[in-house]
């Protein structure tokens, strides 16, 4: 499964929900499908996208929040999974695209390449719903089930280690930040 195809498959579910992504390929690919004011791309601070998602989910309990994370990023904030599980925001779906590598900095393998099981870690941290999927069909079903379940869910989507030709887009960081904030507050 390619991450871009996975994003395309669930784009309709993202459109009206609050979306927070990590930097790099995920941000560029989602923008290539169509930027929206309710999408925020955390273009640095690796590991904190899930924490931002928690802050938003706790502050906006009536909205669903989808975090699009990556294996390299969540590996930098595994403790954050215990915080997520502890507060269990029922309006948060945490997707981790796992390409088993740090793609944008040379493709070196992460620990998931040698067996680290992120869904297992999330479950052991106390996340009530977890899944690992590797096909578009299973991914779409898992996202739909998570949104319908209305409970904290971590979905690990195994994807190929391929990305876009370029990571920098024409959306400036601050433009994204203020537009996103205005959209959340309106």
């Amino acid at each position: 499964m390619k991450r871009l195809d996975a994003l395309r498959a669930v784009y309709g579910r993202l459109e009206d929900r609050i979306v927070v992504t990590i930097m790099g390929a995920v941000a560029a690919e989602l923008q290539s499908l169509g930027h929206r004011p309710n999408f925020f791309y955390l273009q640095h601070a690796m590991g904190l996208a899930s924490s931002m998602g928690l802050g938003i989910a706790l502050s906006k309990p009536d909205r669903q929040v989808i975090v699009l994370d990556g294996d390299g990023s969540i590996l930098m904030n595994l403790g954050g999974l215990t915080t997520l599980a502890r507060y269990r925001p029922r309006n948060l779906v945490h997707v981790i695209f796992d390409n088993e590598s740090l793609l944008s900095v040379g493709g070196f393998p992460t620990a998931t390449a040698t067996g680290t099981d992120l869904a297992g870690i999330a479950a052991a941290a106390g996340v009530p719903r977890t899944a690992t999927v590797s096909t578009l069909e299973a991914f779409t079903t898992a996202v739909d089930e998570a949104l319908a379940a209305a409970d904290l869910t971590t979905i690990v989507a195994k994807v190929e280690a391929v990305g876009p030709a370029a990571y920098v887009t024409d959306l400036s960081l601050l433009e994204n930040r203020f537009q996103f904030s205005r959209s959340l507050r309106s």
Partner: protein
Amino acid sequence: MSPVSTTSSRAIYEALKTSGVRLMSALPETWLVHLIRMAEEDPEMTLVRLAKEEEGVGISAGAHLAGVKSAMLMQNHGFLASVNGIVSCAQLYHIPLLMLISYRGDFGERDPWQTEGGGVTEDVLRALRIPFSLIDRPDQVASRINHAQTLALSANKPVALLLCRDLMWEEGQR
């Protein structure tokens, strides 16, 4: 009786409430015990206990973008552990943070393990160009917290208040 000052803790908590803070992240540390309990017992406050302080940067950033005022409670070593998040999330994206930092390792410190971090705290804050102020008397609490919050919101940047020993620790105790 804990030598941590309940009077000062109460003053700090009240000032945070007056400043509109409704979400607090915290990692327990001795000087902050009363503050954390006050947040825990207050139905108007969302308290998020962290595994590591840097998470608090992301949580406060998310809360701010969603329109909720927040504060971070941590020890200075937790601040040191949060530096990349502060720079690459809060400063990069012009997001206000109100950081209340217990200033361990300064004059009067008896725990040897606190002293190295105490010696670098102010220099690191300056290097990061984070406006900060020390609070060492209870009568300074209300105005400094109010002013710090005002600057954080008008400048869209992190600010820090260093909670000093004379404020947090009752006299005559270790």
